[in-house]
């Protein structure tokens, strides 16, 4: 095995890049606001993402109120309902999950876990955040624009997205949404290039790619995917903007609106769907892969056991990333396509189950006979595995063309993707925050509040989304403002909807406990010390907690992989990555 290269005397090779000179802030503004320190940028990204995520949470409450108690709330009319759906979906997928995993955890963890002083281009990194913030503000502005935000659904399918029948279609809504997405992509690209180059070219001495914690592998692969997938969304947004503003017909067929023949003609709405889903499917894994990576590290650390099959875990991440670029049309089975294409896309979709199942087995095998500590991060990690398996299994239904066609656009789909890419990654985000909060602030989060938050969120998420499978199977459509009296829907379906709404209100309220915990513990949390979880990875070995600007006094040197837990013969049950030692005291060869 080729590993780090040593000289004949066993000495490590010299540093290939001289130590970087960091930008040193001169004022409060450049230290904490226009900061070029990846750790500050990470906190800025995370705070902004959580703030706009709270908006999405409230929107989901409002939707549930309408579904549970149709017509009881006069201000939720059909238009508003569609606006809530659209904004909830877009905020959650792009502005919360993508931004929090890559901009938040990516910025914080990549330099620290790799033993770097900062990202390679701190200035571009700072710009990335400010453009992201601008994108969020433009998006939020659409709530106050004439006509309100767009109600086109988060997929923004033309032609309806730019027609007057859709809220915001002929007003500002769709324009602000498209502008915001374009800004987000520009901002993300600046950050994303930083993350990729830092991983490839900015690692510490001794840190080989195959010694990186899986967290970094997940974030790295997701970032590469995002850099290749977001261009399709960018192009789709630009073209739809032209259709709306200039009157071009990229996506607009000949169409009659309000009894009037429009000037458009000859465009292809299916073209938009292809562009959108060429971005949209990788996007699922852009959110999922960092979650896979983080959860691997949480499980290994809190079960005091090396991750099972590290190399296979890495390759599974890479293979899932590659496969996710050739499955996009499984979102378009009902749009109609050549049956051979349906066959192709169904096959590739189901092949993804292989590396994904491999990861689930390896997580379970890591837990097997481990010294499992049921800490908060561990609870969330376990909840993730269960939820992800649940959501993944319904994916097998929806990946097959003949099963998908009747289930498409029912609540079954809503249940599926909320389980697999909504609840599951968010459980990981919670687990990760409980895990790394002590490093960010130097204090532990409150355990009692955390337990309360966990159990309500975990059980509540199932009370919300499990019944939706049933609703979908009896044919309840999604995205409908109200069902009315429908013959195929039994009265119990309405009762169930009411039940889901109550569960959703409670789960949403539990997040207030979490937010309070986050704020309260900055001052009042128990002192964490440098390495409260007794973890091996580099971010826990910094000389100060929270790490100062530049992260290290002297750059660390890495001697082992990230998973030396419970090594037989070692004095403690973990050996930090930067601790030299005899080669027989490692489990690195275990994979």
């Amino acid at each position, binding site marked *: 095995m*080729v*590993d*780090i*290269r*040593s000289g004949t*005397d*066993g*000495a*490590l*090779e010299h*540093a*290939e*890049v001289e130590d970087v*000179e960091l*930008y040193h802030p001169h004022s409060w503004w450049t230290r904490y606001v226009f900061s070029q320190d990846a750790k500050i940028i990470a906190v800025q990204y995370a705070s902004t993402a959580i703030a706009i995520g709270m908006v999405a949470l409230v929107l989901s409450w409002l939707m549930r109120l309408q579904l549970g108690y149709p017509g009881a709330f006069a201000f939720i009319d059909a238009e508003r309902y569609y606006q809530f759906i659209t904004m909830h979906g877009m905020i959650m997928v792009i502005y919360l999950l993508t931004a929090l995993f890559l901009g938040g955890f990516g910025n914080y963890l990549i330099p620290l876990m790799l033993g770097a002083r900062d990202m*390679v*281009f*701190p*200035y571009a990194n700072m710009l990335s955040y400010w453009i992201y913030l601008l994108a969020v503000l433009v998006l939020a502005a659409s709530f106050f624009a004439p006509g309100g935000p767009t109600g086109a659904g988060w997929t923004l399918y033309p032609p309806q997205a730019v027609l007057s029948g859709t809220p915001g279609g002929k007003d500002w809504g769709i324009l602000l949404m498209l502008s915001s997405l374009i800004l987000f992509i520009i901002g993300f*690209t600046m950050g*994303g*290039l*930083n993350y*990729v*180059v830092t991983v*490839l*070219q*900015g*690692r*510490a*001495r*001794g*840190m*080989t*790619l*195959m*010694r990186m914690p899986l967290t970094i592998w997940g974030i790295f692969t997701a970032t590469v995917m995002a*850099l*290749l997938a*977001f*261009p*399709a969304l*960018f*192009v*789709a947004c*630009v073209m739809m903007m*032209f259709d709306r503003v*200039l009157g*071009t*017909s*990229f996506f607009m067929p000949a169409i009659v609106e309000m009894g009037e023949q429009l*000037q458009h003609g*000859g*465009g*292809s709405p299916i*073209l938009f769907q292809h*562009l959108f889903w060429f971005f949209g499917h990788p996007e699922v894994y852009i959110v999922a892969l960092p979650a896979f990576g983080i959860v691997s590290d949480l499980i290994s650390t809190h079960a005091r056991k090396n991750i099972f099959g590290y190399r296979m875990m890495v390759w599974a991440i890479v293979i899932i990333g590659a496969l996710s670029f050739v499955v996009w049309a499984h979102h378009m089975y009902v749009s109609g396509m050549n049956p051979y294409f349906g066959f192709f896309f169904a096959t590739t979709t189901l092949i993804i189950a292989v590396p994904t199942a491999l990861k689930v087995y390896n997580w379970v095998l890591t837990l097997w006979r481990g010294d499992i500590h049921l800490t908060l991060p561990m609870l969330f990690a376990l909840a993730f595995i269960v939820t992800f398996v649940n959501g993944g299994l319904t994916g097998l239904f929806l990946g097959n063309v003949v099963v998908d066609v009747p289930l498409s656009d029912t609540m079954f789909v809503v249940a599926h993707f909320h389980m697999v890419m909504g609840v599951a990654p968010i459980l990981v985000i919670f687990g990760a925050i409980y895990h790394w909060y002590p490093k960010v602030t130097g204090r532990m989060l409150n355990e009692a509040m955390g337990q309360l938050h966990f159990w309500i969120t975990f059980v509540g998420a199932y009370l919300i989304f499990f019944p939706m499978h049933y609703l979908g199977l009896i044919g309840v459509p999604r995205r409908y403002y109200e069902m009315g009296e429908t013959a195929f829907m039994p009265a119990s379906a309405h009762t169930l909807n009411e039940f889901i709404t109550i569960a959703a209100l409670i789960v949403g309220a539990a997040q207030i406990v979490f937010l309070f915990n986050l704020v309260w513990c900055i001052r009042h949390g128990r002192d964490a010390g440098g390495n409260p979880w007794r973890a091996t990875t580099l971010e826990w070995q910094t000389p100060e907690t929270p790490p100062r600007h530049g992260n290290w006094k002297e750059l660390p040197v890495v001697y082992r992989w990230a998973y030396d837990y419970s090594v037989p013969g070692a004095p403690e049950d973990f050996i930090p990555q930067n601790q*030299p*030692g005899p*080669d027989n005291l490692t489990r690195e060869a275990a994979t």
Partner: protein
Amino acid sequence: MSAPTHSPVTEPLPRPSGLVGFAADWASDQRTFKNVSWGKAMMWIFLLSDTFIFGCFLVAYMSARMSTAVPWPNPSEVFALHIGGSDVPLILIAIMTFVLISSSGTMAMAVNYGYRRDRRKTAALMLLTALFGATFVGMQAFEWTKLISEGVRPWGNPWGAAQFGSTFFMITGFHGTHVTIGVIFLLIIARKVWRGDFETGKRGFFTSRKGQYEIVEITGLYWHFVDLVWVFIFAFFYLW
């Protein structure tokens, strides 16, 4: 492997070549692409991402052109210039392409002189490259003006499919924006080279990092990419 110690060796070890070297580089620590600076790696990855943007634009254009139900305007007539009493097809595009490809040549020479620390020649060649680029954009503006005066609009044209105008303005506009940004960067870097910023170690206004001559090559990478993209636009839009 015996217990590694902290003492660094002074001489870099020889690296294997060929496939073994490739594997060794990917299995090594610190840097995957040895001897590739951060800036250059970043530009390459950005260009990969940008390739996907242009790729999506071109695929969208091809899909529109292949699925159109009305005739597509004939490029060799639309892009002809009336010179000396006869229509010369594609003459302007031929000159534009020649100018842009020439600019890649001057850019490559600028990179060469940059590494020889020849400030004057580097700056002069970069300025020449920028001049070629500006000429290209100028001719593009002329072409747009001509087409617009003949009635081509993003939403329609006198000869056939409306998507002809929409894709033409969108794709050449996006490419022209790239060229314009390139010209601006060339001028900024040429000024820095001329002033000798890379000898004196003057710090960047925004990044407060010291610049290096390598930035000439990184700008060159971008410039060649924009040039290469034009070759595809030329082939798919004008020659098809």
